[in-house]
Structures are given as structure tokens and as C-alpha cells.
């Protein structure tokens, strides 16, 4: 407990020191960085203690703080993402941190971390709400860092709206929670309120609008932090406050399942349509949140009809995927950040061929992409594997709705996985492979070690997760025991078998690597002594191929996007080739957010229209104002005397007479 307080204090000290010394960028960066690092290390000790060791939950007497496994599960990603992000920041900030902006950045960065820790630490609803709002505010300031551009302004505004709307839901939620233990319809109301309030943070599908706006606008480390660590906290809030162990598990399960499915498919489809790298990553976060929700949904359904296997597979899969997503998305966003610094654009149709200039970043990005599209020898596969397995188990054992759920889950996962592979192949190839598609990409700067090392840390973390995955899955058992009423010993034995599977996968992955190595050796042996030339790309007889003939990212995903156009409604800007010898022709495809376009914008526009209508009240005519006053007065009188006769107890007739006089005066005044 003390260490946790210490961590918060360190964060705050770092933040304020940075703010204090914001005139000297170096000092500010140092202070902020040290604050983050020391704080994270302070956090790491108790978290690791309760996560891998056998430390029990602790709680403080005086303050409404307590720290248990659930907190640890959600605090660990925060730490894992925060350290490299902090290390990455100084390099990223170079050139941005004029006149003390660096110090401000560090201040808010630290504050965000502090509030995130507080969110995970307090079970008390009110404190939770406050910490939650602080988290939103501080991260809002970080999103608004590049305040000069109009997009950033829009993004920050959307994000703030989302935060405040979520807070409004949570206020209602907490007000309802204050009462006696909730059952039946009230319990459901609370659950849906919580789903709305926290779904805004998680980015469940119709509520995700702020996500693809805010992530491209924010600085890369911030997007890493938000996407890797902050989105998960929504799940934390749901588990901590909303979901009662005694509650209707199947309702929870079905909600998570449907929302997760929509989120996964919709997220990845919209990701396919994006041209901006960070937008693409943001949508893929939505997809992964959907996958986690699928896992949780299966877990709850399994708990609902007492199926130990499904429950434990679902929960552990969800947790594992949560960790994987945190680390991978952090790494990807950092890579995107260094790409941005190198070529200062994120439009994939203008990038390309960066692998030559930034080999390390490119390689790591490629590995992360393979991993996050859940391909086997990498850690990203493990989580989805467990969720798949849960679903297949459902196919074997369950019947009726549960069977349908499992089949549905399998199909969604399969389709998502397929498209995700395409999307990330597009990302890698459009950014790093082939020829540069624009001058700024052509003379991109080479990567800086200060940026590569933090990304490398993420890679190491991926490996660590892959190795420790059985241990991570073991930690699911208390959760399952808390939420469901399954026999603990079954859960534990089941988890042990699960870690057996994970070990098998580990062995096979090693086998794959070994075989790959052998193949490489064989290949080297073959090309021994043989001459090896380099030529231009084979261009099927066309003399001078150049970068303009290259396949762009948009072209790459065009078949998929067109196929799903009934969902995506992409906007195409075509300039068809004209004349006999066409000079200019161009095609730009962009996919603005569906929910934003077809749900929220019309809503807000409607409100705006109504407000324009209402303005007639304030038209500036004094006569009108006074008339309105008098009419309102008379209405009040009528209301008072015609509809509240019970109050005029003594002598009703008198009061009626009085009323009529007033109405008479009304007659006099209707001019």
C-alpha cells in the first residue's frame, strides 16, 4: 500500500517539477521521465508481488483505497506501456517543446498516470468517479497537445464530450448504486448504464467515435498509453462497479458477446478503409477490445451454465489478449510516432520504402503487425487461441443458445482474423516496403536510437508475455471464482490444462523457428559459390517502372472495402483519365466513421437546428420581451389558481373571483 501511495506521490512530484522547470526542456524532460520511471518501479513491486507471487489483497483503513488482483491485472499493462512511452517521449518531443510545452506535456503525462493508478486503486464509487474524470481531463490535455491544428481541436472536443457523457452516465450509475442491493430490472438498468458509461471509454462500437479522432491527434506516446492502457480501464470499471457476482450472468454474457462481435468486425472493417496510419491503429484497437469482450462474453456464458472449461478458457483468453494488445498496440503506436517524426506524414499513400532508412523500426513494426493479426509464432496468437478454444468447446459440449453463441463467436473471430491480416499487411507494405511514394518519404530522416530502444523494450515485453502466459492465465482463477459459482478445484485443474496447451504452442513455435533456421541454413548452403545479382523489379516488359505505378495501400484493400461498401460507405474522390493521352488522373478513398456520420452528427445537427429555432425568443425586440414576461406571469397565475384550487382553502369563491380578475387583465394586455 505504501509503495502505491509512494508511486502516486512520485508521479505528482515529477509532474510538478516538470511544470516548474518548463523553461529548460532538458530539466523538465528529466524530471518528468524520472517521475514516471520511479513511480512505475514503485508500482511494479506490489503488482508483481500480487500477480506472480502470493501476496494477498491489501486495503487501507483510513482512505477508501484497496489493492487486489483485479487492480493488479489492470495496473500491470499501465506500467508496461508507461515506461517505454515515457522513454520514447523526449525524442518525440524534440521540435515540439518550444516555450515550455515540454514541461506541460510531462506534467499532464504524469498526472494521467497518477489518475490511472488511482482509478485502479479505489473501490469507492465516488472516489472512482473523481479519479475517472481526472483521468479523462488529463488525457484530454495530452490529446490537445498540438493545439494549433483544427483537426486536433475537433478531436480534443470530441474526446471531451465523450468523457463528460461517460461521467454523466457514471453519476447516474453511482446514484443508483448508493441504494440497497439492486435486483431485477434495476440491476439491469445499472448494468446498461455502466455499459454505456464505460463503453464510451472502451470504444464499444456505436460509442467509439472519439477513438479514431483522438488517437491520430495525440502525440504517439500518448496514443500508446491511451490505447494500450486506458481503454482497458473501462473493463476494469465494469468488473469493479457494475457486474455483481450474483447478477444475471447470461445477460452480461450476451451483451458482451454481441457488442464484442460488432466491435471486432466493425473495427477491423473500418481499419481497412483508413489511409492514416494512426487512425488504422485506433480502429484496430476497437477491434481488439471487441475480441476481449468476446472472450469475457464466452466466459460469462460458460459461468452461466456451469461450464468450467468454457468459463476458464474465456476469462483467461480475455486477460491474455488484454496484455498482448496493450504491449503490441503500444509498440505499434510508437513505431507510427517515429515514422511520423521521420517523414512527417502519416498518410500511407504517401509513404513507402522506409525499411531501408529505419531498419529496426521497420522490422519491429512488421513483427508487431504479424503478432497483432494473431499469427502463430507470436504472442498475439495465444489470447485468440484460447478464445477460439473456448468457442470450440462450446460447440462440443453446449446445446441451444450456448451452441449458437460459440458458432457465432468462431465465425466472427475467423473473419476478423482474415481481414486483420490483410489490414496489417497493407500497413507494413505501404509504410515500409516498396518504393517511397512521395518526396518527403523519399528523403525521410533515419531513425534515432532514442526511439528504437523503447520500441525494443516492447518487443522484449512481447517475448516475456509469451513465456509467462501460463502464469498470467493462472491469475484468471480468482476472477472466475469471484464472478461465477464454479468449484475452485475444477477451475484450477482446468487452468493447469490450459497452460499445458500454451506450452504445446510454445514448443511448436520453437519448432517453427528451428525449421525456419534450418531452411535458412539450407538456403545459405545452396547459394554458396553461386553468383547473386540485383536488377530492377520485373516489370513485365514495361521499360521504366517508377513509384507512381506502385500499388498503394488503398489499392491493396480496395477489393475488400468495395465488397463491404454497404457498411463502410467510403468516400471516393476520382479524377478519371480524360482525353486520348491522359496526363492527370487520381483516386483518393477515405472512410469516415460510420457511427459518427450516420448517428451522432445528425443528432448534434438536429440539436443545433432546434436551438436556432428557439432563438426567436431573444430576437432583440423589447416589446416582445415584455409581452413574453406578462404572458408568462398570466400563465403562472392561471396555473396557480385553476390547477391548484386545493390550496385556497378558506373561501374558494373569493379566490376564483381573484383569478378571473387576473385573466381579465390578461384580456387587457394581449396587445
Amino acid at each position, binding site marked *: 500500500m505504501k509503495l502505491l501511495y509512494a508511486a502516486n506521490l512520485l508521479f505528482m512530484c515529477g509532474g510538478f517539477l516538470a511544470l516548474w522547470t518548463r523553461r529548460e526542456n532538458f530539466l523538465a524532460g528529466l524530471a518528468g521521465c524520472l517521475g514516471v520511471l520511479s513511480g512505475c518501479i514503485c508500482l511494479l513491486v506490489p503488482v508483481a508481488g500480487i500477480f506472480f507471487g502470493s501476496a494477498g489483497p491489501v486495503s487501507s483503513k483510513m482512505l477508501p483505497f484497496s489493492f487486489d488482483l483485479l487492480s493488479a491485472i489492470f495496473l500491470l499493462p499501465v506500467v508496461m506501456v508507461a515506461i517505454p512511452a515515457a522513454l520514447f517521449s523526449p525524442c518525440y518531443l524534440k521540435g515540439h517543446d518550444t516555450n515550455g510545452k515540454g514541461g506541460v506535456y510531462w506534467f499532464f503525462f504524469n498526472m494521467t498516470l497518477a489518475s490511472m493508478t488511482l482509478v485502479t486503486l479505489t473501490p469507492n464509487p465516488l472516489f472512482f468517479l473523481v479519479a475517472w474524470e481526472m483521468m479523462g481531463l488529463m488525457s484530454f490535455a495530452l490529446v*490537445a497537445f498540438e493545439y*494549433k491544428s483544427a483537426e486536433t481541436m475537433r478531436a480534443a472536443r470530441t474526446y471531451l464530450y465523450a468523457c463528460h457523457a461517460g461521467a454523466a452516465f457514471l453519476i447516474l450509475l453511482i446514484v443508483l448504486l*448508493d441504494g440497497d442491493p439492486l435486483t431485477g430490472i434495476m440491476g439491469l438498468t445499472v448494468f446498461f448504464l455502466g455499459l454505456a458509461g464505460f463503453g464510451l471509454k472502451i470504444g464499444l462500437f456505436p460509442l467509439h467515435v472519439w477513438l479514431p479522432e483522438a488517437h491520430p491527434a495525440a502525440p504517439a506516446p500518448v496514443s500508446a498509453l491511451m490505447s494500450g492502457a486506458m481503454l482497458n480501464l473501462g473493463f476494469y470499471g465494469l468488473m469493479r462497479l457494475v457486474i455483481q457476482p450474483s447478477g444475471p450472468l447470461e445477460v452480461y454474457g450476451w451483451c458482451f458477446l454481441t457488442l464484442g462481435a460488432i466491435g471486432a468486425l466493425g473495427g477491423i472493417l473500418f481499419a481497412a478503409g483508413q489511409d492514416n496510419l494512426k487512425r488504422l491503429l485506433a480502429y484496430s484497437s476497437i477491434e481488439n477490445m471487441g475480441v476481449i469482450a468476446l472472450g469475457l462474453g464466452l466466459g460469462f456464458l460458460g459461468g452461466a451454465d456451469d461450464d468450467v472449461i468454457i468459463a476458464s478458457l474465456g476469462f483467461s483468453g480475455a486477460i491474455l489478449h488484454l496484455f498482448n494488445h496493450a504491449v503490441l498496440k503500444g509498440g505499434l503506436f510508437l513505431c507510427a510516432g517515429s515514422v511520423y517524426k521521420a517523414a512527417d506524414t502519416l498518410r500511407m499513400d504517401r509513404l513507402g520504402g522506409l525499411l531501408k532508412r529505419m531498419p529496426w523500426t521497420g522490422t519491429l513494426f512488421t513483427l508487431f503487425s504479424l503478432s497483432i493479426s494473431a499469427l502463430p509464432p507470436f504472442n498475439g496468437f495465444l489470447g485468440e487461441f484460447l478464445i477460439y478454444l473456448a468457442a470450440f468447446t462450446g460447440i462440443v459440449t453446449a446445446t441451444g443458445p450456448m451452441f449458437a453463441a460459440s458458432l457465432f463467436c468462431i465465425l466472427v473471430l475467423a473473419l476478423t482474423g482474415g481481414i486483420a491480416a490483410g489490414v496489417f499487411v497493407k500497413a507494413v507494405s505501404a509504410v515500409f516496403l516498396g518504393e517511397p511514394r512521395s518526396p518527403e518519404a523519399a528523403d525521410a530522416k533515419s531513425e534515432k536510437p532514442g526511439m528504437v530502444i523503447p520500441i525494443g523494450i516492447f518487443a522484449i515485453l512481447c517475448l516475456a508475455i509469451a513465456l509467462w502466459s501460463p502464469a498470467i492465465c493462472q491469475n484468471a482463477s480468482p476472477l472466475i471464482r469471484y464472478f461465477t459459482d464454479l468449484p475452485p478445484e475444477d477451475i484450477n485443474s482446468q487452468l493447469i490444462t490450459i497452460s499445458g496447451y500454451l506450452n504445446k504452442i510454445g514448443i511448436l513455435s520453437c519448432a517453427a523457428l528451428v525449421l525456419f533456421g534450418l531452411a535458412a541454413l539450407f538456403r545459405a548452403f545452396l547459394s554458396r559459390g553461386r553468383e547473386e545479382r540485383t536488377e530492377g523489379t520485373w516489370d513485365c516488359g514495361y521499360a521504366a517502372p517508377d513509384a507512381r505505378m506502385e500499388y498503394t495501400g488503398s489499392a491493396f484493400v480496395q477489393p475488400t472495402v468495395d465488397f463491404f461498401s454497404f457498411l463502410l460507405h467510403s468516400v471516393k474522390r476520382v479524377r478519371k483519365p480524360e482525353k486520348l493521352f491522359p496526363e492527370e488522373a487520381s483516386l483518393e478513398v477515405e472512410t469516415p466513421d460510420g457511427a459518427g456520420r450516420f448517428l451522432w452528427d445528425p443528432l448534434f445537427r438536429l440539436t443545433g437546428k432546434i436551438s436556432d429555432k*428557439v432563438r426567436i425568443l431573444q430576437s432583440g425586440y423589447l416589446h416582445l420581451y415584455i409581452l413574453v414576461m406578462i404572458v408568462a406571469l398570466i400563465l403562472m*397565475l392561471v396555473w*396557480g*389558481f385553476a390547477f391548484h384550487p386545493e390550496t385556497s382553502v378558506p373561501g374558494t369563491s373569493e379566490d376564483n373571483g381573484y383569478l378571473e380578475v387576473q385573466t381579465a387583465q390578461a384580456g387587457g394586455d394581449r396587445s
Partner: protein
Amino acid sequence: MTQGSFLFADFPIIAALILLPLLAGLMAFCARGRHRLVRFTLLLGAVTHTLLTGMLFFAGKDQDPIYKVTSQWLAFDDVGGIFLALTSLLFLAVAIHTVFWLPPEEKVSSRHDPSGAPLMRDHTFSACLLAFLSMMTLVLASRNFGLLWVAVEATTLASAPLICFHKGAHSLEAMWKYLLICSVGIALALFGTLLLTLAAQNLPSSSLGMDSLSFHMERLHPGWFKAAFIFILAGYGTKMGLAPFHTWLPDAHSEAPGTVSALLSGSLLNCSFVAIYRFLNLSPSALRPFCDGLMLVLGLISLAVAAFFIIRQTDYKRMLAYSSVEHMGIAAIFLGLGMGSEPLAILHLCGHSFIKVALFLVAGNILMAYGTRSISEVGGMLGTVPRNTVLWLIGLMLIGGMPPSPLFVTEFLLVSSAPLWLGVTVLVLLFAVFCGMVSGFLKMAMGKGGVLKTTDFSARQAERLWFIPALLLLTALLAGSYLLFSYELMNFWMKS
């Protein structure tokens, strides 16, 4: 808090509280031309008022028989005392700000449009300010409904000239509307007061003294009292800015200089709130539900109107004005909830006053820097006037009720104590208001800078005036967090 329970009835001090500012105002008026002296007098008036307030509180709550007679007319009960302290502190703050704000304002406004309308002479300005202060004190002090009426009308008269500090067509129009609408409203209140005497006819002592009335509260004639209450609500509601009687408010607040609009919205509205509050407490128990319902309806209407006018508002001072309407509406809803939520209403108003005064002062600075009140023309303030912008945004968060703002506490309690439908409605409307304000404020704070450079004279002048708003906001922040944590910890300890 029942009427007339504990009274700060120390007559000499009260008289001094009311008269000294008047005297100071007279001094300032006579000292025309000698700017230093004028400003010094302004400060003097403010400081003495604050000191006297302190003395009043230290003089303690006594029922000294000597003051029996005078306390029929002038005394402070708890509510009056709280608002007196608030008013006097805020006035002190505003006065200090004004002293530093006047000279650059004169320079800058001449720069912004050389051929523009002249400014009000500062001796008149200070005189009116001081008179305004004393009249507000009178409102809070008066224990007689007739006197109350006189005082409220007097506040209108004292504050009306302040509105056209920039002697221009627009400010004239605003002042005219303010005068006429408020006077008509107040005339309604006068009629209401008459009806009150009528309702009190069959009382042993037929006078307008609050104590006697509240003593015989239950014996007031219900029909007459209901009529009286409606008229009073219309009248003082006009002054308090409850929709649909609020129409003067945005014009006056937007046209008046920042300091004046700060006072108008930070103190004047509270005074009229006190007036309504006193009448509400007079209502016999049979009528109480009706009166509460009326307050509730008016409050909701004000909230809704404010929301719709804040969305897509193009003038940031009008936006602030409408947000005042909104918060007055919330206070009215608190009163309407009744049953011990009056203290919350008062708390809400105090928090609102601090934040709103700070915001209006900052708005004044921005106006000084940019010379325009339209949101679309102000841009990139973070780059040009960073200090003011930070204050501006902090104020936004506080007024929008984000923790740890005192308004967050009160609004949370409102939602938790109100019935569910009311809570939901209020939350939705608050969200709409917040969206409107955020979009406006962010448009101002972020984006490409407007025509203004950091090095411009006006910008530098505006940057100098950051102290008082910062102080006020800090106070609000600390008070809010204190409230929040004390409340939460209380809950926590209750539970465990």
C-alpha cells in the same frame, strides 16, 4: 434555517456598511479628474466594507434589546450574512482588478478603434460601483419587504449606468433594456408586496416586517399569498434571471465591461435570489408544495433555455451570461426540491459566484486583448495569451462541473437527491450546456492564432491582469476539493 432566528443586528456597523460605500462613492464622484485619488477611494470603500463585514461577524449574534427596533428594519440573518461575506469579498477582488484594469483599458480601447465611443469617466464609474455595493448590502440587510423592494430597485438604478462604460450604441441599448425590463419586473414585485400586505391583513400586526410575518406565517391568507408569491417570483425572478424573465441578462452582461458583468452575475443575481428565498420561506405549509413546484418549473425552463442558447453561441460573453441563467435555474431547482436542500442552493450559488466572477474577469482580459467578442474571430489564444487561456480553460472545467469543482458536488447531490426523471433531465441539459461551452471555448483557445501576436501591446496588457482571477479560481478549486473529499471520506467512514 428559520427566519429571524439568529441575527447579526449590530445597528451601527450595519448602518456603516450601507452608508460608508455611499460616502466613498460621493468622494470618488467629487474627485473627478484625479485618477489616483478616485482609484484609491474605490479601494478604500471596498476594503472598509470587507473590514466592517468582519467586524459584524465578530460582533457576534446578539439579541441585544437595544437593537430590537432597528432589527425590524436592518439585520443579517444567516443567509444574509453568508451572502454579505460573499458579496463583499468578491467586490474587493473586483475592485482590485478594476484598479489595475482601468488604465490599460483606456489605452487599449483607444488603440482598438481610435474613432470609437469614449469611455465613461472613471470617477462616475467608481461612484456607481460603490453605490451598487451599498445597495446590494441594503438588499441583504433589509428585514422589511417594502425596504427590500426599494433596495432591489435601487441596485438596478445604481448598476444601470455601469453597463454603458463604453459609451456606444450597443451598450446604450443594453442599458435601456436592462432598465425597462427590470423596472417592469420590479413593479410586478411591488404589486406582489401589496398583495402580501393584503394577505397579511387579518394578522395582529399588519406590517411588512419579516419577523412578524414569519412568526404568523401560517395565518397568511392563502389565496392572496399565492397571488403575491407569483407576482414576487415574476418580479425578482426578472432580476435573478430566471427564464422567461431573463431577457435583459445576456445583453447587459455582454455589453458591460468584464468587471461589471462579473459583479452583476456574481453578486446581483445572488441578492435577488435572497429576496425570492425570503418569500419562499414565508409560504404557509399548505402552499409550500405549490411554491416549490413553481420554482422547479422555472428552474427547469431556465436550464433548458440556457442550454439551447449556449449551443452554437457566437459571443463568448453572452455564453457566460447564459451559463449564469443556467446556474440560477439550478439554484431554483434546489429551492424547488425543498426539504433541506436550501443550503445546497446557497453553496451552489457561492461556488458559481467565485467561478463566474473569475471567468468574466478573464473574458474582460480577452476582450481587451482581441477587441472582439465573437468566438470565431478569437483563436489560438494558447499561443497569444497563454496565462489567460489557462485560467479560461480551468474556469470552463470548473463551471462545467468537473471534479473537483464545488459545482460538481452540488450537482451530484442534486441528481442523487432528486427523483430519477428530474435527475436524468438535469443531467441531459447540463451535458448540452457543457457541449456548447466546450465547443466555443476550445475554438477560442486552440487553432491557428487570430490576427493577434504575443508581442502586441493589448496582449501584453491583458497578460498582466491574471492575478485576481487565478486567486478566485484557486479558492474555488480548493473549496471544491475540500468539500468533495470531506463528503466522500464522510461517506466512506460511514460505510466502514
